[in-house]
């Protein structure tokens, strides 16, 4: 081989080498919590204490990531799902969040539950630039990318929901006389604000009475009597399950039959409608965004079939009538999608960027037509819902998918 030829081969080989190494450098980027083989996902959930019923969400998520790992992981990386108990106590949440970030070195803190616990860690995670991704609370304030670029909600927020009801009223009952009952705390006020914003300028003329109650009150009967006496023909019922059941029952006792909107927080058939009596709840309007696993309509639905198969194999002891199991499954799928699209660039910044660029994502647990959309200015992934009316012993969906986008 001549000297020139040798040189040519050598330079070609060198050239190849540089191309391939620069390719590797451009491809793989990691922050703490991600490596070639593993992605660490942190989670905080009340397994004990007053809100422990929610613990099933993280159990479903854990099972789902086991499924992801068994099927080869995400882009070849296994998910290491680390979940801690905070008992719904904010100081404990802070301790657990710091443990996840500083000791376990998780890439993101995913789906921590509850408004007070999330408020407690929001500032810390944003200062540390760790994604507080898909928080499990409906407060509207999580959609605030300008002040908290590392925090993102997931489920439709309270204001979006009541905006949808307001739109419905404006369209179908423009001369309504509206009576509102709300719980006097952040949750109730959040819902109330959304409703008023939805009515816009007409709010002042349409609303005849706003009644609030305290959680500490044993019964809300007197408020219902007052609302009926106000002559309202539309009743917006912003109450938590126990009070919602009382309100529905009292309405029937008084023979008051307004157009009744019930917030989705109290949409549970088992804990609200049944105790209040099916016959008293007919024609009540509420809204949904997830498929109700107890609904016979989804028996042959591909998305729910996949859900059932997943439960058979990875979480057989799950209660299949529990909406939280659909919730955990769907939110875990959303994270899976975000991590997949992050590719080999597993920096916290890129994960946040991918989470903020979801476009018309449809998942098996969501109602047909409900799509997940986010952007750099919209940190409220799900803002579509469908109205449902109570008929017989179930909720019946009606009308088209409606959306309301409220920022924090």
């Amino acid at each position, binding site marked *: 081989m001549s000297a020139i030829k040798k040189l040519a081969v050598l330079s070609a080989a060198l050239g190849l080498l540089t191309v391939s190494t620069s390719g590797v450098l451009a491809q793989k980027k990691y922050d703490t919590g991600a490596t070639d083989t593993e992605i660490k996902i942190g989670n905080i959930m009340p397994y004990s204490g007053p809100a422990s019923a929610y613990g099933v969400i993280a159990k479903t998520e854990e099972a789902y990531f086991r499924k992801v790992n068994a099927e080869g992981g995400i882009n070849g990386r296994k998910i290491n799902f680390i979940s801690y108990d905070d008992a719904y*106590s904010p100081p404990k949440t*802070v301790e657990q969040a710091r443990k996840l970030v500083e000791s376990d070195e998780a890439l993101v803190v995913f789906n921590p539950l509850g*408004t007070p616990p999330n408020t407690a860690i929001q500032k810390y995670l944003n200062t540390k630039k760790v994604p507080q991704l898909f928080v499990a609370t409906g407060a509207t304030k999580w959609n605030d990318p300008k002040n908290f670029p590392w925090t993102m909600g997931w489920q439709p927020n309270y204001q979006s929901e009541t905006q949808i009801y307001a739109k419905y009223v404006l369209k179908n009952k423009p001369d309504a006389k509206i009576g509102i009952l709300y719980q006097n705390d952040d949750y109730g006020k959040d819902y109330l604000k959304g409703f008023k914003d939805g009515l816009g300028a007409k709010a002042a003329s349409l609303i005849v009475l706003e009644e609030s109650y305290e959680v500490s009150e044993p019964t809300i009967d007197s408020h219902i009597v007052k609302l009926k006496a106000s002559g309202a023909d539309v009743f917006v019922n912003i109450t938590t399950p126990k009070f919602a059941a009382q309100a529905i029952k009292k309405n029937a006792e008084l023979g008051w039959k307004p157009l009744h909107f019930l917030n989705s927080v109290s949409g549970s058939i088992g804990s609200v409608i049944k105790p209040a009596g099916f016959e008293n709840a007919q024609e009540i309007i509420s809204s949904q965004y997830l498929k109700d696993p107890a609904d016979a309509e989804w028996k042959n639905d591909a998305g729910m079939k996949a859900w059932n198969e997943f439960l058979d194999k990875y979480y057989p002891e799950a209660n299949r009538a529990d909406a939280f199991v659909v919730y955990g499954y769907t939110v875990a799928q959303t994270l899976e999608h975000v991590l997949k699209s992050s590719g080999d660039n597993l920096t916290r910044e890129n994960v946040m960027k991918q989470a903020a660029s979801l476009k018309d994502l449809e998942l098996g647990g969501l109602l047909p037509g409900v799509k997940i959309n986010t952007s750099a200015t919209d940190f409220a992934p799900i803002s579509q819902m469908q109205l449902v009316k109570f008929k017989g012993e179930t909720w019946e969906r009606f009308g088209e998918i409606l959306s309301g986008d409220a920022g924090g």
Partner: protein
Amino acid sequence: MSAVEEAANEAPAVEAVPKRAMTLGYGTSLVVLALLIIVPMFLKNFFVFQLTMLLIYALAVLALNILTGGSGQFSLGQSAFYAVGAYTSAILMEHMGVNYALTLPVAGIICFGFGFLFGQPALRLSGIYLALATFALAVAMPQLLKLGFFEHWTGGVQGLVVTKPDAPFGLPISQDRWLYYFTLVVSIGIYIASVNLLKSRSGRAFMAIRDNEIAASAMGVDVALYKTLAFGVSAGITGVAGGLGAIAVQFVAPDGYTITLAISLFLGMVVGGVGWLPGSIVGSAFIIFVPNIAEHISKGLSGAVFGVLLFLVIFLVPHGARQVAMVAQQMLGKLKKN
């Protein structure tokens, strides 16, 4: 039976602890102190934060120890005083821009007043009745904090976010480390003051009341005054701990100060040894770390595992850390003789 007779016949609520057995010897104290100073220098920020919480809860347990171990009064309401202290510090810092260090004495004084006033009606109660009355206080506090009337100041259910202080004079240490040493200084100050309080005339009055109220009053001790004073001092120290807790956690919300906290503190006191002040830090370690260990063993059954561990402690060493320390001392003594 009159109240006096009842009180006279009642068995003492708390076993008498001789005065000298309430503290550690100089040598041991210095070793513990050296450990508390040196160890955090080599730890990650997160563990330093945990140690800070350890000191803060130790202060709260110490406060309860003065009340129960010192004056023989029970309280399940310490979480209420802790909450008042925490909110006082948080409101002063966030709404009025007061320096964090200055909020602590204010929190202490307000809680002292609050505890002293609560001590007045509590005078009529003793033993389990007093425990129930204070329990009511602990249950009521989170709801009071949520009241719309105070919402402008307390932030309602959402609570208040507190800004964490930086190390002063441009010291090159992290916020967590600075806060740890700051807490350590405050804790040592309060510990020394408490030890001296119990050694003083007032301390002897506390213990006289604890051991026999009627005998104490016959000796000329103003029972009413000293009982309320014990409540005040205990509440004041708890308030300072609460203030420190608010600064360390950077957040206050009603859900953080429920009855669970009060019971944890009570637990810490029993595990550390009732009436033995150095035990406070052992008790505090128990209530912070044992739940984490239990969670590590089984997530679903963490409560049950915690229960078993607690049961073992109460069964094997009913006098808590004090018993362990005394056994260790005896063994050391034997070794020296040999």
